[in-house]
């Protein structure tokens, strides 16, 4: 017993001693940057030394977090003016909401050679409010069809550059070989506003559906939504993988990379994963096409950009702007290219990148990524007019909650524990209730 006592007390002394060692002091301007954990951001983190070499008076510290944790963390901080971060990585969903609340510093002093005119126009729209840039896009993405050229050739099918849903549905059914472990199509099914609802909202746009009418009335009781959800559920039942209602981006990526999907519609950023022989068994057999349409003039593709922004009230705006100008510049792309090759530059932000021959040579998906981004319009996402901004979301603060609630109903419809009609009715009533509570409708 004595030994335990001494051991515990020793531990206590050690801990007490450790508690006394204080944090190191810093004399220069230190930027604390909150960012998401994805390849492009981690690469930027690795290249920080290049920035601090050119700006010795600025030190950079990174807080890297998983997307959902990051969102909660920075939202709490900015809403309470906590001032913990000098630069935030936020998505196109947050930018218009936060800018209208005056939580962000407008980025109009990024330097003469920044060339904001070179930013892809649709991406720029998504991070601007009233023509002012509130966040600088670091990388942008849309969604598109990725398909197996070998399976298409074998079945005698030819994927058009801009396929219709009818074509995709027929091809998916034809290519499904369940005993052979190949499924015609893999789509997101996991519930969440950024998971299945990102895909389904973009899909509904191509069927002419919308979240709200001009008076903010939810529209799940319209025939357009019924066609969208029925098509999705039936297609997945016939040609989708089992257990699709729990599949998100990563699950589908794993399925596609192991050769189990003939088609997959998801983020354009996946293109570099599925064509990477280190990660994918089908790397040399992948083709790309625009997300499908129904001939109404809208394709089922979304628009997203992870962007860097400065919180209002920050004491280090000047240094923060310097960093943002560096990280989102044309020269940064060149820097990445010189270190890791053109295939690894963050895509989807700069027009000049898509004119760069060297990039086009190593990125077979570049043309379609650009076409997909150009085809998505955050200000006019669907066929009919809408009161909100955003392609696969409505940029209002309530959307995260509403979108996830609807996503759960739709995921249940996919799993078969609920009918399509019941899911739509439940989505309509829950959305109506929330919109009434938030004061959009009476």
């Amino acid at each position, binding site marked *: *017993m004595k030994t335990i006592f001494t051991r515990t007390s020793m531990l206590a002394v050690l*801990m007490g001693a450790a508690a006394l060692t204080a944090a190191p002091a810093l004399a220069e301007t230190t930027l604390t940057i909150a960012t998401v954990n994805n390849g492009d951001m981690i690469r930027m983190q690795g290249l920080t030394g290049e920035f601090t070499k050119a700006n010795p008076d600025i030190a950079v510290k990174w807080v890297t977090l998983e997307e959902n944790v990051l969102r909660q963390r920075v939202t*709490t901080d900015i809403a309470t003016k906590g001032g913990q971060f000098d630069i935030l990585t936020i998505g196109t969903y947050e930018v218009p909401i936060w800018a209208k609340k005056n939580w962000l510093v407008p980025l109009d002093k990024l330097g003469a050679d920044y060339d904001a005119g070179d930013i892809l126009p649709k991406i720029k729209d998504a991070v601007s409010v009233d023509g002012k840039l509130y966040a600088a896009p670091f990388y942008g993405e849309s969604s598109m069809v990725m398909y197996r050229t070998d399976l298409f050739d074998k079945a005698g099918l030819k994927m058009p550059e801009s396929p219709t849903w009818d074509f995709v549905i027929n091809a998916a059914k034809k290519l499904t070989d369940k005993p052979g472990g190949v499924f015609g199509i893999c789509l997101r099914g996991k519930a969440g506003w950024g*998971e299945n609802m990102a895909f389904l909202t973009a899909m509904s746009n191509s069927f002419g559906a919308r979240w709200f009418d001009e008076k903010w009335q939810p529209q799940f009781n319209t025939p357009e939504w019924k066609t969208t959800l029925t098509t999705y559920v039936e297609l997945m039942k016939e040609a989708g993988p089992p257990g699709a209602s729990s599949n998100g981006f*990563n699950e589908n990526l794993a399925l596609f990379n*192991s050769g189990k999907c003939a088609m997959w519609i998801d983020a354009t950023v996946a293109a570099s994963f599925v064509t990477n022989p280190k990660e994918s068994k089908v790397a040399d057999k992948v083709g790309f096409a625009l997300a499908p349409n129904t001939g109404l003039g809208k394709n089922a593709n979304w628009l997203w950009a992870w962007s860097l922004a400065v919180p209002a009230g920050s004491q280090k705006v000047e240094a923060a702007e310097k960093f943002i100008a560096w990280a989102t510049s044309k020269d940064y792309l060149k820097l990445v290219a010189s270190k890791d090759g053109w295939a690894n530059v963050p895509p989807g932000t700069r027009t000049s990148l898509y004119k760069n021959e060297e990039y086009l040579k190593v990125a077979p998906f570049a043309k379609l990524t650009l076409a997909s981004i150009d085809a998505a319009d955050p200000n006019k996402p669907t066929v009919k007019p809408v009161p909100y901004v955003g392609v696969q979301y409505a940029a209002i603060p309530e959307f995260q909650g509403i979108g996830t609630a609807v996503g759960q109903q739709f995921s249940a419809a996919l799993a078969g524990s609920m009918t399509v009609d019941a899911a739509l009715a439940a989505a309509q009533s829950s959305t109506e209730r929330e919109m009434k509570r938030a004061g959009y409708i009476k």
Partner: protein
Amino acid sequence: MARKVTGRHVAISTVAAWLAGFVIFFPILWMVLASFKTELEAFATPPSFLFFHWTTENYVTVQERSDYLHHALNSLIIAGGSTLIAMLIAIPAAWSMAFSPTKRTKDILLWMLSTKMMPPVGVLVPIYLIYKNMGLLDTRSGLVFILCLGNLPIVIWMLFTYFKEIPKDILEAARMDGATIGRELIYVLTPMAIPGLASTMLLNLILAWNEAFWTLNLSTLNAAPLTTFIASYSSPEGLFWARLSAASTLAIAPILIIGWFSQKQLVRGLTFGAVK
């Protein structure tokens, strides 16, 4: 004690115990194995158990990208500090409630427990504002304080149950011999309650070590413990299981070792009670 223990009984219970132990340990084993796989192998179906290409690449990546020691030290300080302070408050509190209860003691105990019934996110914004105004955001002392508050009810409850089992007569005998309250606490009560104290401490240490809500939300860099270290390795876009497993293995290693060393006391504390 008349039951006959046959060799077959022993064999069956041994096998059952090993099986149960293996089932409980399996997730941890799987995590350790996954940390030595490549990302593609970690995600492969069907998964391979032992026959894959072993690599330490994930540990190298994790080491390159984050400052593990900084986070581990923070975890140690925060979990250790909050446990120590909680014990200092909880021992006298539990002692007074166990040995001189009033008619309101039960209500006080229940009231303490009721503070655990509210989901922490419900008070995130007020706490964040208070911390901001007091300059406690991203400080170790701030995290020690909040985790100490959060775990106090459980610590007091556990100690209360241990103390209750100690016969009052022993303490009274000490008092008859002229022991002061302080001496009674230190020389009579504490030695008798050591297994209970040790297991309470370890449980509290584990709870504080694993606490992920407050530590993630109230820390940024300086005070960020291992929970933020882990949170930086998960991602909704791209494969991350192998790297996350490597980070998690590193994160649980210290607490696993502490648990290993104090296993004996923990088991005794949980099963025997205070009086031998």
